[in-house]
């Protein structure tokens, strides 16, 4: 009887097993691992990921790439960077044309075009915007039948009932006006908004500082009725910004989201008491005129942008660089933007699932983490890079571009050993600059993703001399190529500096230098050891002082660091935005500025003051070369490297061109949805046989267990 029961049990398990197997066969045609709803398969939806939640989506406050990824698609400043043309070129976005720039003397009288820079007291930027541009549908702009704003005076019950912006069912829109741009400039000045560029703009926009003091204790909404001296709406579509002196780089600021329009209604709506407790704020739910609107903001999981149904007419560029046509970048020339209807950004913190999903076709683009680098990239015989056969087989495209960023090793010029303008210190710095082999660093730690720096400016910035721009103090020019000087040259410099063989004459022992860093984890150890070895080439003992971020910042502020590594990412493509990092008046210790090395050279400062306000010209170019020569000679930095971006895109991703200054590229992107759907089906067929095998093994294992149990029971019964 008991044997019979056991057989029945095994039979039942077998039936379950085979039933499961047949179900598996039925499912084989489906994509069980698809993280998105099936009905999205053939839609023009772009899938991207993000790893860091944006802190702010208010254009007056946002200042990081993770935030610009979203707001640059929603807000529209008057100008933008041309998508295809190089060097980077600012072109109108909501403006009808480039601004009319006029120079004024201290009395406010217009000066001629040939006016001396010294005579210019103010510059006026007169901007005209297009008519007919409308804001995205938004509850802040919704009106009732009487023409009053429907949600500007919410009662307690309405606020309590709301959990998200979508709970306000009625939306409205209105035309964009010049006054909205002025309102945003006032917001930049308001201390309660805490704009990161408020302190910079105080130096430029007339009356900005006074305005900040005037509205300090007033509500955010109070600024609407209070005029600011330096920004005025001339009529419905024209406005003027008056800045102090001459500052040609101001046009770049006007292409950044800081200067996007903001309807006053937004502040009135969001400032209602109780909404902030529901996390319904302008910082979370933007309101713009751009190609996309924020449909879902859940940075814990996903962010969704939808095509703005009221987006104005904007076309894909009809011209670019000569090779753009051949690359197929002008196929969509003249077509209405944007091409994508919906953009889904998924939170992905870990690189393994992110990379796997990209390979499965569930992300359209991906960066390359170091652990998947070898899987994606191979080096060619000539030192170039190419995709591996497995990537090529999937039709993946590789895009590389040198970023407008610089990573450098800085010396604290206030330090008694490595700092100062003495010949001894300078030679010591130059010797270190030769010894620290950044080509090796790029090869070991960044998988070759970088270009060794020859000076302050990264490639692509005006003033970089591509042909002869080799740092003669660190490199030899060999047939136009930079060849790092032999270590003997560095040792000779050490001897001339009074440290022959790396021996400090004061202690008669190896010279000890201190390297301050925030690299405290075990993963950073190889990097730190590498730095030690570079200094050992000169007989110098490098002591690593690793601290947390706060202590490191404190050391930098108080001038207690000796050697450190630092980086800078360009705000705009102008040499002024890099050279100011070495301008004496920006010294970190004395003035709290961005000159972390506390470098001060009167001649360099004079040239900087002359160069910064100049338009690009032969003279400006010459000054830039002079400045490069001064800093190469003084060596306040060991010029490190400019990182190189490697990005992968699937074959269905169209209109790809790296643009490191523009953040609003999504509107130019097109997806071949049929190709994507087909590839996803091919790549994601579920595999069931290991499960079936595991099930069979489990069933077989049960038989001896059941037998053993039966024996035990029989034994107990006996």
């Amino acid at each position, binding site marked *: 009887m008991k044997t019979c029961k056991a057989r029945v049990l095994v039979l039942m398990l077998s039936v379950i097993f085979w039933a499961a197997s047949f179900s598996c066969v039925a499912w084989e045609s489906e994509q069980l691992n698809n993280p998105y709803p099936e009905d999205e398969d053939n839609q023009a939806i772009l899938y991207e990921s993000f790893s860091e*939640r944006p802190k702010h989506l208010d254009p007056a406050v946002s200042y990081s790439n993770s935030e610009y990824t979203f707001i640059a698609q929603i807000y529209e400043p008057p100008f933008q960077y041309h998508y295809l043309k190089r060097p980077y070129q600012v072109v109108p976005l909501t403006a009808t044309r480039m601004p009319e720039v006029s120079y004024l003397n201290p009395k406010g009288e217009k000066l001629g075009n040939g006016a001396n820079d010294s005579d210019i007291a103010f510059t006026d930027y007169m901007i005209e915007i297009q008519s007919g541009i409308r804001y995205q549908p938004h509850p802040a702009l919704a009106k009732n039948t009487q023409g009053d704003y429907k949600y500007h005076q919410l009662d307690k019950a309405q606020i309590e009932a709301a959990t998200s912006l979508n709970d306000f069912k009625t939306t409205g829109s209105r035309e964009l006006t010049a006054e909205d741009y002025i309102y945003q400039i006032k917001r930049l000045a308001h201390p309660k908004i805490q704009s990161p560029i408020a302190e910079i703009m105080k130096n430029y926009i007339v009356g900005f500082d006074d305005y900040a003091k005037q509205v300090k204790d007033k509500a955010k909404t109070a600024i609407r009725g209070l005029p600011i001296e330096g920004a005025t709406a001339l009529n419905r579509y024209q406005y003027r910004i008056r800045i102090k002196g001459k500052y040609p780089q101001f046009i770049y600021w006007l292409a950044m989201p800081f200067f996007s329009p903001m309807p006053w209604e937004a502040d009135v709506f969001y400032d209602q008491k109780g909404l902030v407790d529901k996390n319904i704020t302008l910082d979370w739910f933007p309101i713009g005129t751009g190609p996309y609107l924020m449909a879902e903001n859940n940075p*814990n999981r996903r962010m969704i942008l939808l095509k703005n149904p009221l987006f104005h007419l904007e076309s894909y560029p009809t011209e670019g660089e000569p090779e753009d046509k051949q690359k197929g970048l002008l196929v969509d020339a003249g077509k209405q933007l944007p091409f994508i209807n919906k953009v889904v950004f998924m939170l992905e913190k870990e690189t393994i*699932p992110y990379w796997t999903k990209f390979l499965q076709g569930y992300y359209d683009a991906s960066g390359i983490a170091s652990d998947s680098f070898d899987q994606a990239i191979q080096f060619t015989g000539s030192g170039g890079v190419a995709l591996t056969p497995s990537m090529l087989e999937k039709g993946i495209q590789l895009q590389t571009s040198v970023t407008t960023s610089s990573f450098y090793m800085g010396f604290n010029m206030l330090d008694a050993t490595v700092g100062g303008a003495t010949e001894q210190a300078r030679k010591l710095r130059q010797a270190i600059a030769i010894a620290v082999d950044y080509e090796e660093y790029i090869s070991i730690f960044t998988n070759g993703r970088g270009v060794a720096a020859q000076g302050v400016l990264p490639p692509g910035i005006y003033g970089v001399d591509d042909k002869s721009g080799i740092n003669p103090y660190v490199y030899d020019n060999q047939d136009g190529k930079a060849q790092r000087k032999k270590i003997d040259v560095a040792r000779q410099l050490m001897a001339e500096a009074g440290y022959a063989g790396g021996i400090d004459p004061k202690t008669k022992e190896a010279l000890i230098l201190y390297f301050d860093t925030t690299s405290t984890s075990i993963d950073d150890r190889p990097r730190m050891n590498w730095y030690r070895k570079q200094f050992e080439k000169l007989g110098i003992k490098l002591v690593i002082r690793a601290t947390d971020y*706060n202590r490191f910042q404190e050391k930098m502020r108080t001038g207690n660091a000796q050697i450190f590594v630092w980086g800078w990412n360009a705000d705009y493509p102008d040499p002024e935005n890099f050279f100011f990092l070495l301008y004496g008046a920006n010294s970190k210790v004395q003035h709290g500025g961005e000159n972390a090395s506390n470098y001060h050279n009167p001649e360099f400062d004079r040239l900087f003051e002359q160069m910064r306000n100049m338009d690009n010209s032969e003279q400006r170019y010459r000054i830039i070369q002079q400045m490069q020569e001064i800093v190469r000679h003084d060596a306040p930095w060991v010029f490190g490297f400019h990182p190189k971006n490697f990005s992968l895109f699937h074959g269905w991703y169209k209109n790809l061109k790296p643009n490191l200054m523009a953040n609003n590229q999504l509107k130019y992107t097109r997806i071949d949805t049929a190709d994507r759907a087909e590839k996803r089906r091919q790549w994601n067929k579920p595999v069931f046989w290991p499960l079936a095998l595991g099930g069979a093994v489990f069933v077989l294992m049960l038989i001896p267990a059941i037998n053993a*149990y039966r024996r035990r029971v029989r034994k107990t019964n006996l």
Partner: protein
Amino acid sequence: MTQYIIRRLLYSLPLLMGVNILTFVLFFVVNSPDDMARMQLGQKHVTGQSIANWKQQHGYDVPLLWNADAQGEKKITDTIFYQKSVGLFLFRFGVSDSGRNIGADIKERAWPSLAVALPTLLVGLLVNICFALMMVLFRNSYLEHAGIVLCVILMSISSLFYIIGGQFFIGKVLRLVPISGYDDGMAAIKFLILPVLIGVFSGIGSGVRWYRTLFLEEVEKDYVRTARAKGLTETQTLFQHVLPNAMIPILTGVVVVLPLLFMGSLIMESFFSIPGLGSYTIDAINSQDFAIVRAMVFLGSVLYVIGLLLTDISYTLVDPRVRLS
């Protein structure tokens, strides 16, 4: 029992206050309000004035614990500690340093954490008890020895390995479930299968050994021998007598962790992109958002206190000999 519960709740007040002070002191030993401002304001163009503005806007422009310049009770109330801590006891967590309402965030994030943790606990409990009972059933046989070796092997492997291995094998090679992600409602199920499976599997080693110990302790007792002497089979003895008696330590062990299920699992949530409370806390620590850190530590303490209280109560339910007084 009501008096006992009230007394225990009152005891927890100074405990929570202590936790709050400790968190406060530890946090501000490492970070000053200036550091927090710099972290929030980013790395570019941060001036002394912008730091002062930030501190004023976020209420960090007063002394930490004692305001010597103030008068009367304001010496205590006009401090960061008082202003940021009192609301906690009323479960008003306030606004994070990046401007979000913490209470709303916690409410939203607690459910995904629970969606992973609860099935993992229940399925894990079922699986572990079943395997432990089987090992007891086959005690002193090669099956038990093999089971123990297997458990020790499973215990010795890092949970990270299970996560990465599970994602690789089930998500990447077999392509049976999405490798990571989350969705609302029933659509969440396909995203939960893998983390729950891995959570259960990674806990089998330690869980089975623990429950096996509990069951073995019971099977040697006199009442079990009596049951066998009455002629009950081994299966009947185990399920009808051993299991109910071994449930006391099992139940109390489970009850104590129940409230903490809301707090989520840090690694699991991070690898599977589950928007729970585990990643919320670590993100706050990384961004030096004191308001969130303080709220989460406080919430964790409250839930732990509740867990211990529930454990005491559960004793009285499963063991009539226990009386709370």
